[in-house]
């Protein structure tokens, strides 16, 4: 169609000059084609292989997690692109208090305004860091946004019709977790834990329109975070099938064991924060406190989030941030529960 005749390379695979002397390495485009052809050729054996009950359940849950989370991720990367293209750095700095210790709770409250799940907040909080927001405040926003937004609180109220205190306890536990983690990061956090690439600003090419910056940023974030989201989906689907359901039901009234198991399950199952309340509501044989722990830990740290955090901020960051968040979230949930419920209930 277009009269493209001159041999200008269209990409910069890291092969500048002299490609003849190097061994032939298949490009990603060729690998993609090969995978697609192989998948089509071996379609029947492949579907046969997945026709075992466990694998069928696992693959359904995997697709379900992806289909459910991708719209929220798309929402997040679009917001991230908008901020990169249209919001000047000075505006964000002015919006938050200059004192970082004060900016943390403000960022936590700002999380109430983002009605999404955790998949939207990961690319968004990284964008905030790149735009010059203090990392502690951006991390607080990351933890608060999926946990304290109005949709989550309303669905919690619907799931626990007889227990209005659950909503209050969940809000307090999650908000405390986010703010405490922000303050901890101020005291203990080291900038070098966050991968350098996460904070590097995307330098727009000269002549790019604002819309082009928006679309390119969103596309870039989508490809990158999407891969890690899928990784998290695979992990959570596998654990769904491996972890016996009886874990949840055989706990009975053991509170300490219940708290620990429910916290671990929240990480492992990686449920959407808008639906997790309905799942724990069905575990009426457990006291309220372990179920609250599930609701507070889940949106703050789960396998899907850990994968996405490792992707966005680097593995050294995720290896420190995720375990610490887990401990803080369990403690905040237990604290909030004991105060609000006046016991384990």
């Amino acid at each position, binding site marked *: 169609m277009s009269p493209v005749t001159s041999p200008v390379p269209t990409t910069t695979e890291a092969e500048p000059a002299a490609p003849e002397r190097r061994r032939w390495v298949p490009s990603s485009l060729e690998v993609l084609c090969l995978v697609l052809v192989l998948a089509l050729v071996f379609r029947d054996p492949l579907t046969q292989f997945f026709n075992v009950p466990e694998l069928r359940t696992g693959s359904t849950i995997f697709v*379900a997690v992806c289909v459910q989370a991708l719209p929220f991720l798309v929402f997040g990367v679009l917001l991230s692109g908008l901020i990169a293209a249209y919001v000047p750095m000075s505006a964000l700095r002015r919006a938050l208090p200059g004192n970082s210790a004060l900016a943390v709770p403000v960022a936590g409250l700002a999380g109430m305004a983002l009605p999404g799940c955790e998949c939207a907040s990961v690319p968004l909080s990284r964008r905030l860091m790149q735009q010059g927001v203090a990392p502690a405040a951006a991390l607080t926003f990351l933890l608060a946004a999926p946990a304290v937004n109005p949709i989550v609180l309303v669905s919690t109220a619907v799931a*626990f019709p007889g227990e209005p205190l659950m909503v209050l306890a969940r809000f307090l536990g999650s908000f405390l977790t986010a703010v405490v983690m922000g303050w901890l990061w101020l005291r203990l956090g080291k900038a070098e834990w966050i991968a350098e690439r996460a904070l590097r600003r995307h330098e727009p090419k000269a002549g790019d329109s604002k819309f082009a910056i928006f679309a390119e940023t969103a596309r870039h974030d989508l490809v990158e975070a999407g891969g890690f989201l899928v990784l998290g989906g695979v992990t959570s689907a596998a654990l769904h099938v491996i972890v016996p359901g009886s874990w949840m039901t055989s706990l009975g009234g053991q509170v300490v064991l219940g708290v620990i198991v429910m916290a671990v399950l929240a990480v492992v199952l990686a449920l959407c924060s808008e639906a997790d309340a309905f799942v724990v509501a069905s575990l009426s044989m457990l006291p309220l406190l372990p179920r609250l722990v599930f609701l507070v830990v889940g949106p703050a740290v789960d396998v899907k989030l850990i994968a996405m955090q490792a992707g966005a901020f680097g593995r050294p960051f995720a290896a420190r941030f995720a375990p610490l968040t887990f401990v803080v979230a369990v403690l905040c949930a237990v604290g909030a529960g004991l105060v609000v419920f006046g016991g384990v209930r």
Partner: protein
Amino acid sequence: MRRETQNILLVLLGGALLKIGLTGAYLNYVKPSFQWLVLAAGAVMVLLALFAIARDLKQHVRASAGASGEGHSHEDGHGHAHGRSSWMLMLPVLAIFLIAPPALGSDSVTRNDGRSVAQSERKSGGAVFDPLPAGDVVPITMTDFVTRSAWDDANTLNDRTVRMSGFIVHDKGSTLMARLVMGCCAADATPVRVRLTEEPSVSGYAVDSWVEVTGRIQPGTSTQANSYTPSLTVTSIKQIPIPEMPYE
């Protein structure tokens, strides 16, 4: 990963979302209200990829027209160091187009042994349910039936013939009919079950086949000990096609 490959993957993934959103297959994975979200997400993915492809083509044309040599700096700064994760985007594409996993079935019901939706519905001080509509045979959802069986102090189900649909589960020698209730997506699905009794032919139905049954509750059979699985005296049972919305 090359920029072109990323764009093709985005088109494929967006296309997969559009496909399940338009054919109704999305109902196997998420609740009905997600349809426009799935469609919008698919459309945005395709558009972002097409926009990038169009820009590349334009730059390519400009560069080959001899405008300048800098027109092809495509790799966007941090492509190679961790570009491998983007390959994971292949998995949902392959899963949706090739395997097309079905809705969850009996395997999830037996796996979630002991959980039941009915357990969440308890309202303090005994629940008051609206009376069932008049008529010889009352159509009812399994969730409503099981919840009433567990918590209805007025026993509105007793001596009423009801009609429900679900799929067959064979568990420890007895035949159950079950349905999964979804909060958000299939990952959080919770089962409701009814034990089918007094009708020998029920054991002949294959696991996961969909049936419509009419029958009456056996009062007092829905207890905490059996995870609120009421027994139904079956008067008729027939096989039906898989409903468009497999979850409740």
